[in-house]
């Protein structure tokens, strides 16, 4: 099953927590076709390295395409925005006569395709995005060849229809003429003036009332205690016209249906071509969106290698970076190299361990989905499976304790992992007693060590890192900071600013610890900086001794 069509690289939580979903949601997609394509997009798996390299080359090509023709690209996107998904109409075209509204929408889409085609021709787009010519169908829907974005069952569609409509018009005029003539007669003979609608309201006190009653074809339609309303009756001649006109109306409707049916048949003939055009538009939309995202976020092409390695040079977590940028702050890039085996990240609180962990998931995930990555340089070996284990609010909603949900997820991870997996674990077993927690962590690491997984674990358990065959990376933290300056700044700051000041002095970069494997004890320092009572801090220090 794992290799079948339901195969998945990562579950929803992992995609969300690492930030992949965030990137996908922020793509500038403008067509329903592009959005559908993104939803259906599949990652590349080990064995598909060559295909992925080709895909990334295409993204690279698209990026230079975007850079060289920004004006055309924005014109393309404008056209995209107007497009509608008409697959339901296309389906219906095989069975029923399409309605006028549907035919209008179809014509609009075809016109939009033509517009896109023209822009694409001006600015050579790759062959795979060039649309098939829909001119033939457009000619059917636009008998006047004026290419205006309007639609009606025009007279030009059928000679018969034009004749029928003309006939109907003549009847209308005949009826009106006959009525007007009679109105004029009544005015001359009796001095009663009918309204343009050929009725008249006469007050009971008026002398006209008696006269009106004498006119045989002036029918009394209603009366009350104040007035009487008369309406001009229809003469046999007019009735004749009305009857003929009704017949013509029926014929017009039939003829319109025939026209709609003919047009629908032509639409049905073009069904496949329109759909494949829509697919190409979707592909172009997605390719442009990927390229634009890559350019805007300063991404590079990851080097795809056969070995199972993740090497990130100065990587940035896009979601965090966006937040920082919105606060006008800079992101501190992280470099990290991971290979099969267990790597631990240790270091100060507030040192960005969790973000580094997420970054280690985001970069390979983006690469496997054929995206450029937010790094200075990256080398990625493809994985079969990725999962992140991290505390979230959902466990509380489900009524599980944090430890309970952690264990549940851990089981899921261990059940699903296979050759070439990436497993990211954030401070496991921190929610239980340290004795058992430590034991559990150590045993888990022993288990992971022996497997071909890239395992990255953030932890505060010092003993975990003591073993020789695991890599220990540490956050530089406040080690290089000028504490005197920091202290004086904190002294005058209020509570909100303190966090900002600490993060400014914090060095988030990681380095590999080779000799001294002791974990820095920064927790009390930071608690103190954040303004926790001296009494508590001093008390804690006593216990450490």
């Amino acid at each position, binding site marked *: 099953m794992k290799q079948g069509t339901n195969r998945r690289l990562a579950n929803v939580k992992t995609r969300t927590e690492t930030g992949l979903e965030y990137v996908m949601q922020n793509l500038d997609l403008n067509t329903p076709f592009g959005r559908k394509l993104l939803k259906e997009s599949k990652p590349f798996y080990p064995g598909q390295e060559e295909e992925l390299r080709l895909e990334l080359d295409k993204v690279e090509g698209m990026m230079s395409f975007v850079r060289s023709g920004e004006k055309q690209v924005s014109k393309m996107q404008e056209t995209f925005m107007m497009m509608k998904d008409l697959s339901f109409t296309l389906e219906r075209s095989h069975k029923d006569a399409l*309605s*006028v*509204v549907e035919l*209008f*929408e179809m014509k*609009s889409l075809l016109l939009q395709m033509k517009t896109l085609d023209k822009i694409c021709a001006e600015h050579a787009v790759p062959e795979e995005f060039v649309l098939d010519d829909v001119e033939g169908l457009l000619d059917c829907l636009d008998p006047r060849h004026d290419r205006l*974005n*309007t*639609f*009606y*069952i*025009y007279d030009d569609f059928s000679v018969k229809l034009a004749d029928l*409509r003309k006939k109907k018009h003549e009847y209308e005029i005949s009826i009106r003429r006959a009525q007007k003539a009679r109105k004029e007669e009544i005015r001359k003979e009796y001095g009663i003036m009918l*309204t*343009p609608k050929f009725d008249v*309201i006469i*007050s009971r006190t008026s002398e006209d009332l008696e006269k009106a009653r004498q006119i045989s074809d002036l029918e009394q339609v209603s009366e*009350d205690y*104040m*007035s009487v309303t008369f309406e001009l009756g229809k003469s046999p001649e007019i009735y004749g016209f009305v009857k003929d006109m009704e017949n013509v109306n029926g014929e017009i409707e039939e003829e319109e249906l025939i026209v709609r049916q003919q047009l629908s048949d032509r639409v049905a003939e073009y069904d496949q071509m329109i759909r494949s055009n829509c697919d190409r538009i979707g592909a172009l939309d997605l390719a442009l969106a990927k390229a634009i995202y890559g350019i805007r976020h300063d991404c590079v092409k990851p080097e795809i290698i056969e070995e199972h390695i993740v090497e990130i040079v100065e990587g940035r977590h896009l979601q965090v970076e966006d937040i920082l940028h919105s606060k006008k702050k800079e992101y501190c890039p992280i470099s990290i190299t991971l290979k099969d085996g267990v790597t631990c990240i240790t270091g100060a609180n507030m040192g960005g361990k969790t973000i580094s962990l997420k970054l280690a998931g985001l970069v390979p995930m983006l690469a496997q989905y054929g995206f450029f990555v937010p790094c200075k340089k990256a080398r990625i070996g493809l994985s079969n499976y990725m999962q992140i284990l991290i505390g979230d609010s959902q466990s509380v909603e489900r009524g599980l304790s944090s430890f309970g949900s952690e264990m549940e997820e851990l089981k899921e991870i261990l059940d699903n992992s296979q050759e070439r997996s990436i497993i990211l674990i954030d401070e496991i077993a921190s929610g239980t007693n340290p004795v058992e927690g430590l034991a559990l962590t150590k045993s888990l690491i022993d288990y992971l060590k022996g497997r071909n997984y890239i395992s990255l674990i953030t932890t505060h358990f010092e003993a975990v890192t003591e073993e020789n065959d695991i890599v220990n990376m540490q956050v530089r933290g406040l080690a290089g900071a000028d504490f005197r300056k920091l202290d004086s700044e904190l002294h005058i700051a209020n509570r909100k600013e303190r966090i900002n000041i600490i993060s400014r002095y914090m060095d988030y970069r990681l380095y590999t610890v080779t000799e001294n494997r002791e974990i820095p004890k920064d927790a009390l320092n930071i608690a103190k900086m954040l303004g926790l009572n001296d009494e508590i801090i001093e008390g804690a220090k006593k216990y450490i001794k």
Partner: protein
Amino acid sequence: MGLLYDLSTKYKTLSIVGMAKNAGKTTALNYLIEEADDEGIRLGITSTGRDGETSDLVTGTEKPRVYLYEDTIVSVPAQLYDLADAGLEIMEMTNMNTAIGELMLCRVCDSGYVQIAGPVATADNKKMCSKMFEMGCELILIDGAIDRKSIASPDTSDAIILSTGAVISRTMKKVVEETTHIVNLYRLPEFETGRERETIEKHCGEGRIMLIDKNGKLTKLGLKTGLGASRFIDDAIDEDTRYVYIPGAFTNSVIADIQRDKLKQVHFILKDPTRIFISAMDWRQLIKKGFTVSVLKNIEIAAVTVNPFAPSGYSFEHEVLRDTMQEALPDIPVIDVRL
């Protein structure tokens, strides 16, 4: 040249608003369309939303179904397109949605009956009108709110045509009185430009009751609405207070407890006349007490149409109703749409 021609030289968009349901709004609309056709004015027809009128859609009775002539531009929701008796060329999908489908702008190719509908939101309405002008309309008629209380705001159109009729009351005197009252309210003077108006306009978005004293000093009350707040307003008015701005509905309870001398001393300012819910008689008494008021934006009334028939069966003498109304409103054209 007829009435509509005169109106079309003065206004670009006209809303037709009924004093009450069955006041003859649709009849008035049809009448105006006939006139436009006679005078060769290229019309645009839309409406301010169809919500609340769906029952008419279902039963097919008494709905704003209007007979439109060739080259008129009309807004039609997609689901009503096939019900139209007229030939409609689709010009544009507007992306504005109603309960009965996306609104389309259509050009009438073949005269006939059309059920009209339009956007509900004021902003959409404006957008729709500007699109219609782009398509070459010379005058836009908006099938407005079903009764005057639900008019969103005066800025949907340049002026309104008020439809009134026998449905208001069994006595003609009352019909004329009520209509004149509304007309007078709508035409309340606009608060003159100056330092005080600027102050109010700057702060009126906050929806607070505001007081301005003779030195131009502004005081905002903590109350959000004036409803039932007349005691607090009375408290807040001191001997220097000159203007009081009331943001929300203006009812008897806003003003009931304000002492007579204070009422005389200050000038009230409202956002627009649709906020006033005070009967003709109470209004007259207030004026007698020395109450003065103006609005930030008033409503221009282009014409009044009268319908002498009430659906419950009674009616008035046509000419008498029209002439009495005309006498009461000497400077506004009054039309009997049935004559």
